[in-house]
């Protein structure tokens, strides 16, 4: 018994299998969904009648904030990525994700970050200023609790998780598709995920930079957001540059699911799928140039306001195409109204209402009245709950038989839909009519006349919330006693339906192949429905049904969870430390936890890198447009792409405060040009030595390799030495008092860069240790090459920082 338990525990804690991780994501997201939902129902109770006192204003503000943060970051995306984890490798015929252990690590970072967010309730007060975290209210002066530190820590951790998994998915989808599966032939769900990870890759680094600056302001008393020059506007811009794409990030995967589920149940192909894909891409691109619509009232002037009105209205066009295509799909169909179909069709209907009301808010003139009211709350719930959550629940019913091998109870599921749909509209439609009521208010007086509509909404909230019990009960029971579902209960065409339900641990025995004539070959052994026609086309080039080049190993690794746990401990140590009083800077982190985190982290890093966990790359796969690039290298390049955005935002923030400041110290007065020059030379030389290291390795010259690596390490050390000297002399000269903003931007930007240098030096030490053992000189120098890419990037960043801080 105990043995069995430990085996089960080990499987789930150490798993790196994409299907297991997918299940973990889905269950965890549902857990956070319930938690955030309970917060929401409590808020609805508070608002049901005027002058209610179920919640104090302090607690209400925490609830509204954590509800929003949890739903957006810990429910919507992870729910969708649970499906992506489980289904996409099956749909593209990949063995697993490109980096299975990284995938496990993403999950554990996600789980621990959520725990941290909820922990914030127990350290003074949870974040209480809305999920938008407007500055300067985040300044220590106005939010002196540790809870907000924890919230910032949780956000940093989840951004790390999201970045890891978007790199992972990107490499997988570009490099590991089954032969013949051209991008254009993918169905809509994988397409929506592909577009989503691109948005994630460009939006989240901006958010990371923003939260980092926010945290440093709080911890060390710096001035990015607490100054007038930075302050509200800087946060607004950086946050919404991320924030609007984020709105689509949480929506697109659900749209993808909807666009795959409806054709399956309608028994007709998606109408105009080319145009639907094109629309997704177009909307994703436009989403990066509409953020100004969140600042219509901040006073940017009439030209800017009109410009953003136009871009925002324009972004609704691709969605029109998508909606019309979905509806057109139903024409001359044979529509089976199973629960999954009901939920996805319902999602389309609610999404239409959400979209139409979005056009109201895009109009700057109407926004002057509607900004910050319940009209907005209604609008985004129609999109996020009506479109996303309903769509995702449709996906849950759709894939539940595949994942568990059992059928759920159809009539209970249909009742679940009807009650949810009615409850939803009773809950949110009245909020459109409350277009005068400010959002995020803890209470209101009776003479506002808002009582009846609020009461209605609350009743709807409990109907909607209660309906979800049907979902959980149905799935919980059916997973145990439901009738066997068979491999393809819905008669779907995508590849996951070719496998038994649930699929075996290693997925396909042989790689599926897409033929030129549109047939798909699955090789042997698969649960194709009897008599279904089974491709007759000619294989294009390679042989059909060959083996994967690696049979999936046991795939258990303890290191991902340990690594995530050490990061959790580390951030806990940093964030529950005593926050700085604004002046003087007296930050006291909680050292014991930090030390634990660092030690654990080093151990798991060592374990991770020494573990034999080879993921061979299949050569016979579809990998346009990156045919020549190995997986790891593509991974590094995408990671560096995200880093570019990250530093871009840091440098942008510097420019922002600098141009907003009436005065700035002239070059040479604060930061010594000679220091900067010396550091530049040192770093550039270290790039040379890194190149020499690679050249030596290529030439098989062990001594040359070791000497060049030592040189790189030494030069990195020298750089840090000069930097540290400069930091200390500046720090002790009281520069924060004389030049608060120049000092803030200098310390933060060069600090972050310094951390990158330290990380690079750690890698060098690791490389050195291996080089001493004779590695890398026998053609196995790929790791060196990857390190080189990173190191050159760090140097290039400095080449930008040097003139910015020292010369101009």
């Amino acid at each position, binding site marked *: 018994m105990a043995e069995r338990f430990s085996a089960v525990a080990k499987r789930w804690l150490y798993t790196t299998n994409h299907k297991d991780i997918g299940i973990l994501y889905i269950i965890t997201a549902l857990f956070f969904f319930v938690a955030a939902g309970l917060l929401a129902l409590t808020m609805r109770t508070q608002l049901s009648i005027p002058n209610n006192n179920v919640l104090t*204003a302090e607690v209400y503000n925490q609830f509204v904030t954590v509800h929003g943060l949890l739903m957006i970051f810990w429910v919507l995306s992870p729910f969708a990525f649970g499906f992506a984890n489980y289904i996409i490798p099956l749909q593209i015929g990949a063995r697993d994700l490109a980096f299975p252990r990284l995938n496990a690590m993403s999950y554990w970072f996600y789980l621990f970050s959520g725990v941290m967010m909820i922990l914030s309730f127990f350290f003074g007060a949870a974040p209480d200023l809305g999920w938008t975290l407007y500055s300067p209210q985040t300044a220590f002066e106005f939010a002196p609790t540790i809870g907000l530190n924890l919230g910032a820590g949780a956000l940093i951790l989840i951004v790390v998780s999201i970045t890891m998994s978007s790199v992972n998915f990107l490499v997988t989808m570009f490099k590991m598709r089954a032969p013949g599966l051209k991008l254009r032939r993918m169905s809509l769900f994988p397409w929506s995920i592909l577009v989503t990870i691109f948005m994630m890759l460009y939006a989240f680094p901006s958010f990371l930079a923003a939260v980092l600056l926010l945290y440093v302001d709080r911890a060390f008393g710096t001035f990015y957001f607490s100054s007038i020059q930075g*302050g509200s*506007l800087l946060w607004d811009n950086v946050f919404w540059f991320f924030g609007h794409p984020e709105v689509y990030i949480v929506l697109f995967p659900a749209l993808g699911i909807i666009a795959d589920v409806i054709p*399956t149940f309608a028994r007709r192909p998606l109408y*105009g799928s080319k145009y639907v894909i094109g629309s997704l891409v177009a909307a994703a691109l436009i989403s990066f140039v509409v953020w100004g619509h969140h600042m219509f009232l901040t006073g940017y002037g009439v030209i800017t306001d009109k410009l953003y009105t136009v871009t925002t209205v324009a972004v609704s066009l691709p969605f029109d195409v998508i909606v019309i295509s979905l509806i057109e799909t139903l024409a*001359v*169909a044979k529509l089976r109204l199973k629960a999954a179909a009901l939920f996805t069709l319902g999602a389309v209907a609610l999404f239409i209402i959400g979209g139409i009301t979005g056009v109201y808010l895009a109009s700057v*003139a109407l926004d002057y009245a509607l900004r910050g009211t319940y009209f907005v709350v209604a609008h985004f719930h129609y999109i996020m709950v009506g479109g996303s959550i309903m769509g995702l629940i449709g996906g849950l019913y759709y894939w539940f038989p595949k994942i568990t091998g059992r059928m759920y109870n159809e009539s209970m599921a249909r009742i679940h839909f009807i009650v949810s749909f009615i409850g939803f509209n009773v809950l949110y439609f009245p909020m459109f009519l409350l277009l005068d009521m400010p959002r995020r208010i803890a209470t209101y007086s009776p003479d506002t006349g808002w009582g009846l509509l609020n009461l209605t909404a609350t009743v709807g909230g409990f109907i909607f919330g209660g309906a979800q019990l049907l979902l959980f009960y149905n799935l919980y029971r059916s997973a145990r006693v439901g009738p066997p579902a068979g491999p393809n209960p819905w008669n779907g065409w995508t590849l996951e339906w070719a496998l038994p339900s649930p699929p075996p641990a290693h997925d396909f025995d042989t790689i599926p192949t897409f033929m030129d004539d549109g047939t*798909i070959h699955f090789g042997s052994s698969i649960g194709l429905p009897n008599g279904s026609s089974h491709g007759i086309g000619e294989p294009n080039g390679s042989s059909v049904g060959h083996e994967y080049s690696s049979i999936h190993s046991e795939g258990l690794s303890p290191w991902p969870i340990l690594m995530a746990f050490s990061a959790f401990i580390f951030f806990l140590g940093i964030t529950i430390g005593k926050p700085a009083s604004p002046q003087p800077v007296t930050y006291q982190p909680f050292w014991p936890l930090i030390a634990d985190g660092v030690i654990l982290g080093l151990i798991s890093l060592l374990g991770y890198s020494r573990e034999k966990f080879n993921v061979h790359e299949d050569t016979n796969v579809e990998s346009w447009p990156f045919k020549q690039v190995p997986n790891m290298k593509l991974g590094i390049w995408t990671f560096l792409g995200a880093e570019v955005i990250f530093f871009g935002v840091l440098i942008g923030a510097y420019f922002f405060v600098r141009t907003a400041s009436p005065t700035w110290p002239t070059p040479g007065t604060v930061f010594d040009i000679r220091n900067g020059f010396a550091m530049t030379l040192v770093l550039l030389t270290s790039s040379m030595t890194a190149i020499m290291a690679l050249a030596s390795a290529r030439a098989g010259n062990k001594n040359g390799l070791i000497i060049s690596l030592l040189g790189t390490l030494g030069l990195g050390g020298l750089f840090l030495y000069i930097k540290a000297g400069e930091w200390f002399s500046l720090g002790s000269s009281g520069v924060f008092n004389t030049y608060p903003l120049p000092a803030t931007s200098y310390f933060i930007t060069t600090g972050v860069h310094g951390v990158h240098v330290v990380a690079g030096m750690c890698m060098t030490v690791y490389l050195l240790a291996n080089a001493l053992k004779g590695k890398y000189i026998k053609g196995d120098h790929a790791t060196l090459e990857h390190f080189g890419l990173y190191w050159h990037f760090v140097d290039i960043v400095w080449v930008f920082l040097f003139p910015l801080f020292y010369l101009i």
Partner: protein
Amino acid sequence: MAISNMQVQFDNLFWLFTYLAIAVSVVVFGLMVIFIIKYRDRSGSSEPHDAPILGHLPVARGHARTAILTVSLSTIILTVLIIGSFGSIDTILSSPAPCNIQISHSVTYNCSVLVTGHRFYWDFNYAGFPNRTITGAPSCQQAICIFAVPQSEDIRLNVTSADVFHNFGVIAFKVKADAYPGHVNFIWFNAETIGNYTIQCYELCGPGHATMIATIDVMPLGQFVSWFNSTIVQ
């Protein structure tokens, strides 16, 4: 009823949007419902010829002309809405000329007010009289708490904040402006009907946000002049 010029303008625009929204909804939902009812699976309905099946890529379906038609029709509707919005925003963001109210033989007033958000109240300074601060605090009970403006004049507000991000909104007038430190936002309105109207904060600013309420009192010109004389000028 006309309460303020901005409210009249808002109502017109809002209904323009809503009529078009209803028209679009009728078409789209109508189509959807008709399709769902007409093409639902009934006993005897036959499998469509292009039904997707496992082992085959689904056949391509759909015409470019549908996408083009959708985009064109939407563009027409949206253009109407954009033009309407641009007209309104030009009014909202214009700056009317100062008024010139003769308070007494030596004192005139130009209808400009500086509004400052604090946690958790507003204060009001009439231009030219910075030393007479009116606090619209919820608990404020004395005469000086009334924020009065004259009827049918273009009132120009400069809105800012002394601490965090607030948003100043007069509910019935449909005017609103972000109030944040280091920046002054300009809005204006013309109140047409005498009475008391509620001012509320529209950006979460802390525990007192929900009760960050003040009142604006629209007076006939004569009454305003005497009120101004007695409370502001002194």
